[in-house]
């Protein structure tokens, strides 16, 4: 009789431990897992935004600014932009060039650059990529190419960023 009672008590204790502790802990573990999934998702979204923001900030730095000083003294943003474009044009194969540089109204200390010209397809495409290379201080706004028999016409608008 005593042995059966002891066995019964042990079984009751086992059930009590299972119901009172194990089940509660498992439920807590499940809610912790849910919470982790939520935090992980939030962390992923923030990481995406962070990566994009870092890329944007790096891009501003990589784009650079127009030089404030030239070989013959200080340069205005308009002169600096013109010099940049003229140097890019040298040996580029672009002909019949029309170039205009004027102060831009939207961004302070910046200038608008407008250029038209023509050349072979390879020359025009290479020039369009070269003119706003990293560190040039020029940002592309519009690039248009149209075929004219064996030549390609180029129309380009860019913004030159002066030093603040």
């Amino acid at each position, binding site marked *: 009789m005593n042995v059966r009672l002891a066995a019964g008590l042990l079984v009751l204790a*086992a059930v009590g431990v299972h119901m009172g502790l194990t089940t509660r*802990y498992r439920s807590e573990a499940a809610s912790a897992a849910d919470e982790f999934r939520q935090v*992980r998702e939030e962390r992923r979204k923030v990481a995406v935004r962070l990566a994009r923001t*870092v890329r944007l900030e790096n891009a501003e730095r990589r784009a650079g600014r127009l030089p404030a000083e030239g070989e013959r003294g200080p340069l205005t943003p308009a002169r600096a932009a013109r010099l940049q474009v003229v140097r890019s044009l040298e040996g580029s194969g672009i002909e019949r060039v029309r170039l205009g540089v004027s102060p831009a109204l939207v961004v302070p200390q910046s200038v608008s650059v407008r250029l038209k010209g023509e050349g072979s397809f390879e020359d025009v495409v290479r020039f369009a990529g070269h003119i706003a290379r990293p560190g040039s201080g*020029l940002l592309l706004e519009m690039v248009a190419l149209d075929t004219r028999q064996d030549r390609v016409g180029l129309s380009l608008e860019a913004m030159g960023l002066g030093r603040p």
Partner: protein
Amino acid sequence: MRDFSTRPQGPERPRLHKALVAVAAIALAWSAYSAFAARQEVSQRRATVDHARRDLQASQARLKALESRSKDLALAQQSLLTLDAPPPRVLATLAELMPADVRLSSVSLRYGARLDVQMQVIARSAKAYDTFLERLQSSPAFESVLPGDENRDGEVRATVRAGYRGSVS
């Protein structure tokens, strides 16, 4: 002395009771172990959550600092597009999608919050033009492909607009 009595032997109750107690004890031990393991799991998961939360808070603080420092988002996006999607790269991506019978008579790229591409397409046949459009629409490098007016009488001449996504997202 051997027992030659014919009296029936009693049931082996004590042995059964011992087995019962043993099974109950094993059940209790298993239950206690399960509770202990579950408790350990809770601690581990909470530590993981705390670690992830600390990570999240650090990233949020960094993001806030960077965003407050960035003055002009439009300018930054234009810088990114100019550097990551220069005309040679965009045109090379387009060229990869063009069937042999398709060429562009003109193309213009507008750099702003995104890079808009507008092109005048000339295709020797309607089938070649359709193939080009399909490739453009299924290319991950382009989005919002919008075919414009097209003349399908013999040689196809059409206008197509699209946004260039490239590696910029």
